[in-house]
């Protein structure tokens, strides 16, 4: 039976340890746990903060669609996705993916798949606020992001 993914979109920070325990505590069928945390970089000291805008409602819905696709494709025992919004300072968490499975391959691949699709399909936008006070600019998409997501298309 497929698991129901946990999806949260929130301003508050998350606790990766607590989220991994949620997928493992009291169970003996989990043989592999992959945790990915995306953090805010300071871009060599130039970044004051990132501001993450999102589309409330669609952000949750799209993350749920991607997570459900992952549990359909891989035999997972648990899957959690948490994405923050609002102002985030360098060093702080932005996104968390936890994938649990009986075996490592499914957990690695599901977490990788989730991040690739999240980047190209989940409605979040980053704006950089610079320390120089030079104003703020919207982050452009990276050229490789679409190719990363395309790796998972059926051939």
């Amino acid at each position, binding site marked *: 039976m497929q698991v129901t993914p946990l999806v949260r979109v929130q301003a508050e920070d998350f606790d990766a340890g607590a989220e991994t325990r949620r997928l493992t505590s009291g169970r003996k069928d989990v043989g592999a746990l992959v945790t990915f945390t995306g953090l805010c970089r300071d871009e060599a000291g130039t970044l004051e903060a990132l501001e*993450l805008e999102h*589309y409330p409602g669609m952000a949750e819905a799209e993350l749920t669609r991607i997570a459900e696709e992952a549990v359909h494709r891989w035999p997972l025992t648990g899957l959690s996705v948490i*994405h923050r919004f609002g102002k985030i300072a360098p060093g702080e968490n932005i*996104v968390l993916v936890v994938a649990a499975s009986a075996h490592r391959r499914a957990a690695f691949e599901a977490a990788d798949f989730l991040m690739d699709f999240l980047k*190209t*399909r*989940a409605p979040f936008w980053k704006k950089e606020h610079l320390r120089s006070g030079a104003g703020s600019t*919207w*982050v452009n*998409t990276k050229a490789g992001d679409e190719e990363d997501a395309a790796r998972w298309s059926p051939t």
Partner: protein
Amino acid sequence: MNIRYFAWVRERVGVEEETIEVPGGVKTVADLISHLKTLDDNHAAAFEEEDAIRVALDQLHVEADTALGDAREVAFFPPMTGG
């Protein structure tokens, strides 16, 4: 029809959300964009780089040739940069 804008599309249009009377001839997302561009300079600027705009109908990603049908909410935004 309720229209929402996000990120730099929102900044260029100047509002987060607006309700628009859709003229009879507007059938697809592309038709709607053409109509919005005629409203004022802000809309024209927001949709100037039409290829850079992504669209959701009732919170689902769609392409420009998608029919509006009886969608209640259309959202326009740049390519996503989360994660």
